[in-house]
């Protein structure tokens, strides 16, 4: 059996309720850490070889659609090094735009867990919703389709890959200061 066939077979094995619940609890904790802006604790939920990726969205006719490439412009195209720089910016005490702080609510919906051919890794589809309220009264809600690869490291779940498909053609805000 080749790798793809094995992967397909693994994906069709239904996940246990325990596993689904564990993944959901993991996501809720991740969301809470972001809403509390405890970003160092959040980074600890990602593996050292994380790829955190939100490519540019371009509107094409169906016949011209193509999957994103790593060379595409991207909102996020980050390894741990880049993510760390983003968090470092927030820790400088001179990050004027985050003071007063942005109010956020991170929600995770439609969680679907799939086994992979690797027993320690799960592919998880979900929808990430982030509500933001900034400055006096500015509101913005963001929806992304999210495809994660979760890996069990020393018994704990970690995010190893995250692909975010922004469900907006034009990003309808001046800044993207959250991690969907």
């Amino acid at each position, binding site marked *: 059996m080749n790798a793809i066939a094995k992967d397909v077979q693994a994906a069709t094995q239904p996940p246990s309720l325990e596993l689904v619940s564990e993944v959901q609890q993991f996501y809720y904790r991740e969301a809470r850490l972001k809403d509390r802006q405890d970003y160092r604790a959040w980074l600890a939920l990602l593996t050292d070889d994380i790829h955190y990726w939100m490519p540019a969205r371009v509107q094409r006719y169906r016949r011209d659609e193509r999957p994103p490439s790593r060379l595409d*412009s991207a*909102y*996020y195209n980050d390894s741990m090094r880049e993510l760390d720089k*983003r968090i470092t910016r927030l820790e400088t005490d001179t990050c004027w*735009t985050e003071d007063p702080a942005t109010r956020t609510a991170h929600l995770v919906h439609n969680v679907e867990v799939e086994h992979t051919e690797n027993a320690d890794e799960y592919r998880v589809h979900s929808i990430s919703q982030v509500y933001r309220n900034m400055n006096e009264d500015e509101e913005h809600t963001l929806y992304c389709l999210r495809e994660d690869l979760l890996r069990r490291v020393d018994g704990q779940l970690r995010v190893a890959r995250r692909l975010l498909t922004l469900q907006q053609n034009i990003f309808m*805000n*001046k800044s*993207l200061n959250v991690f969907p």
Partner: protein
Amino acid sequence: MKPHEHAQPPQDYSRYMDLKEGWVDRRIFWDEAIYERELEAIFARCWQFVAHDSQVPNAGDFVTTYIGEDGVIVSRHTDGEVYVYLNACTHRGNKICFADEGNARRFTCNYHGWAYSTAGELLGLPSEHAYDPGDIDRTQWGPRKARVASYKGMIFATFDPEAPSLDDYLGDYRWYLDAFLDNDEGGIEFLPGTIKSYANANWKFGVENFIGDAYHAWWTHDAGGRAMMGGPFPPYDPSDTFQASVNGHGWEFALEGVGDIAILGSQEVIDYYTAQRPKMAQRIGELRARLFGSLASAAMFPNMTFLPGIHTFRTWLPRGPRKLELRIWTVVPKNAPESVKQAINIGCNLTFNPAGTLEMDDGENWEGNTRTNRGWVSRHEKLHYGCGKSRQIEHPELPGIVHEGQFNDANQRLFYQRWADLMNAKSWSEVPQRYTPRYAGRPTR
């Protein structure tokens, strides 16, 4: 009233500024009537960036964009030429093409099916027998075409038949553009993907920031700068830094050669350009080889801006006086190894897009600049643009109107002077020449 029939401008726009004293009236960032005049006197007249060659390499390749608020299709036809024409059907005016980019043999309107070629000609109508002979002359009913010209791979268009040639419009700004577009024999290319975003800000705030606001970086971007460079921006030292302005276009820069490249945070990119530098100096001269890569920012009038060393390139599309659409691309040297292109892409996006560690702080400022004009009293106040009024110099090598010192409002004052010149002019022939070209009629490299 047809476009480009020359009516008297509705008012004298010079009264919104005194550039000798150094102030600009806030109403130009808010007023609807002033914005309407901008659409006519600036956007329907000036050459504007529409695409780079690398975005439309093959016959049928197209992108859609805007000239002012006029949607246009930019497509490469089977004859190899790029055509730019209104993205609006001549039948009932529906939008013709709804994609941002792609490849098409023709464009067919959704409403009744009128079909247009990639050269912007009306090719055919469904059920044509419904039309009697004499009802329609198809050759006369293509969408309105813009004039198209390019400079070193950058494609520009204007709807004004009286606009000067692109070379004259750019003038000696070409000398500066060469440092960005032509510092290597392969030139530049655009990486795939466009980042598009809205900000509730007047379009001029984005452009004036790139044309000559080095000053804000030290304060606005302190946090981002520390994160990217491991420490604050070095203390401002005006020596060997300049602002240069040509026809309202501008470039502010140091000459240390690496300040902006370093912000990308990639040793591989620094090493690549360090190795390139001697070749670059041979190609564009020692001075321009140091200009490229330095702490710098630049803008071509009216709404195209870029950071040469950070490799971000963008246009600020007006969406009314209080909103803009920003479109962003990453530019790379075409002949660079793929790993260098990817390192540039990652560093450029990490810093300069709506999620970028530096850019994230800019949009907030420009929305604030715009929104406070809601107040009737605020709106009638002046803004200070007086920094560096007496710093103009003649430089042996640098063309255009040159001021010493990177922290300076000179390029912004000259941007607003060009703005007022165009707003007040009935036609291009009334727009004054404000500098003495050194390269008129000859190449700048």
